[in-house]
């Protein structure tokens, strides 16, 4: 984990329901929040709503962060009391952020073509990678998976950044791991996959891990785990990794959330 972390009161500028499940909010934050890098996250103090009063903060990846305007945005799936409270925010409301937290994705200067592969809410985490990679002159292919086309999110962000987007969905029968693996093997064969990035699906992580190990391709995964502190203090957010044949725990908030995909278990 690097950089300064602050508790910030921000102002909601936009709050938009994207489809039946996803919502996006944009806030005016200023530094250091707006300096967040792709893969980093914030701990949000979600407002009370009729659904309940969240006691713990909720982790949320940075979907967009612009140091110039000082704006930060989040894209999330409405699931429980925290995200329901978030979705109820309207422009002018306050939102309390803690962050930026965690280690983001790294982009090695030598890479010419990267592939992002995600599903569901994981697409929000991967989204800012598109623009960051393009800004470094890399080609980006994004394989974006969803239950059905109407639940796809972040594809617009990838397209706007100039990435090639390959949507795959359960409804169309294109999202199975076998099909995705075929797509990836094709890109690897074409020399269009210098690094792999994934988030949001254990099955896709499994595919990435296999290909990364088989072909020796650098691969990163952004993991999720329930959090309390977000600063590496409480050890509630651990996940298991296999390192040199040994299973050990790492804290998603502090040692991650981005990890070497070859070491992440399950």
């Amino acid at each position: 984990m690097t950089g300064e972390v602050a508790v910030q009161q921000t102002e909601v500028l936009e709050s938009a329901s994207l489809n039946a499940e996803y919502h996006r909010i944009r806030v005016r934050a200023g530094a250091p929040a707006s300096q967040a890098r792709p893969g980093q996250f914030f701990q949000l103090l979600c407002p009370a709503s009729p659904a309940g009063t969240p006691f713990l903060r909720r982790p949320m990846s940075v979907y967009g962060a612009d140091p110039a305007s000082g704006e930060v945005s989040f894209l999330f799936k409405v699931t429980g009391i925290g995200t329901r409270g978030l979705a109820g925010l309207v422009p002018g409301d306050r939102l309390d952020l803690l962050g930026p937290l965690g280690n983001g994705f790294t982009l090695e200067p030598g890479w010419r073509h990267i592939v992002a592969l995600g599903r569901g809410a994981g697409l929000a985490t991967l989204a800012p990678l598109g623009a960051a990679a393009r800004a470094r002159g890399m080609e980006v292919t994004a394989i974006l998976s969803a239950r059905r086309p109407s639940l796809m999110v972040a594809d617009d962000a990838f397209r706007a950044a100039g990435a090639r987007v390959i949507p795959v969905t359960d409804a169309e029968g294109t999202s199975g791991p076998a099909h995705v693996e075929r797509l990836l093997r094709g890109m690897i064969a074409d020399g269009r996959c210098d690094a792999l990035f994934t988030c949001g699906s254990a099955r896709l992580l499994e595919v990435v891990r296999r290909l990364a190990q088989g072909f020796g391709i650098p691969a990163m995964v952004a993991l999720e785990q329930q959090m309390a502190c977000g600063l590496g203090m409480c050890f509630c957010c651990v996940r298991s990794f296999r390192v040199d044949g040994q299973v050990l725990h790492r804290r998603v908030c502090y040692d991650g959330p981005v990890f070497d995909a070859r070491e992440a278990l399950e």
Partner: protein
Amino acid sequence: MTDLSVRIGTLTLANPVMPASGTFSEGMARALDLNRLGAFVTKTITRELRLGNPLPRVAETAGGMLNSIGIPSQGVAHFLEHTVPFFAAFAPPLVASISAPTAEGFASLAAALSVPGVAAIEANISCPNLEADGQAFAMREDSTAAAVRALRAATALPLWVKLTPNVGEIAPVARAAEAAGADALVVANTILALSIDTETFRPRLGNVLGGLSGPAIKPIVLRQVWQCARAVRIPVIGCGGIADAADAVEYLLAGATAVQVGTATFRDPTAMDAIIAGLDRFCERHDIARVSELTGAMRTEETDEPELAWVNPVA
């Protein structure tokens, strides 16, 4: 400017506010100037390496949270090689929290940690005692006395003993710890609790039971601090649900000499900073020169003989 310093036995702290064990680590330096704190208290360590409890490890409740982290410990060597040097760069004294399954285990661990850079030992005796059917040491006077005696013999460092709130009467346990040589008491650890997901019918914690902390427990632990402070002469450090300066003042009034802040840090990692500043302002507003004057300053009037209550002051 109020004099915020307090004395815990031979140790003088710049102010009475410090983190609670298990809710603090190097990571806090990202959000807070660590030199502001009265002391550092590290996560409980054990001698052996441990992974900790199954997940999920935390759950929300009304006005608080449950945790069953367990003690994922990287052992003594890691503590001496990494933790002690890291905190040596800062001014506040380092208090090492330890746990062990036997009195002897406590003693040898305390001895191993009695090194330069460690200013005091906090013995977390709320952990199960293998010699007493897995009951926590701090649930009984005799096992408390045994652990503290062994610890006292093993280290010359100031010895803080952290009690469990999971007892019927805490005063006798506090007296046992004092008599066996404790220099201060930390009151208290979390309250044993359960939460069940009514959709899945499963407990919300992987470990089934966990410890309740946060604002919900404040009135309970505050009562125990009051009971302990009346029962012993050594300083009591209050810990339970403190989130702002008023909460800290409440603990001082009940008899605490200093306070530890745990769960509040998760909602706001700068909470301790605000509490320290708030204590200063509070004392100025009330024309109190030294924060230590607040300790035990609760006013109770002589009332008429109170009637027997169905809920009764037991101490």
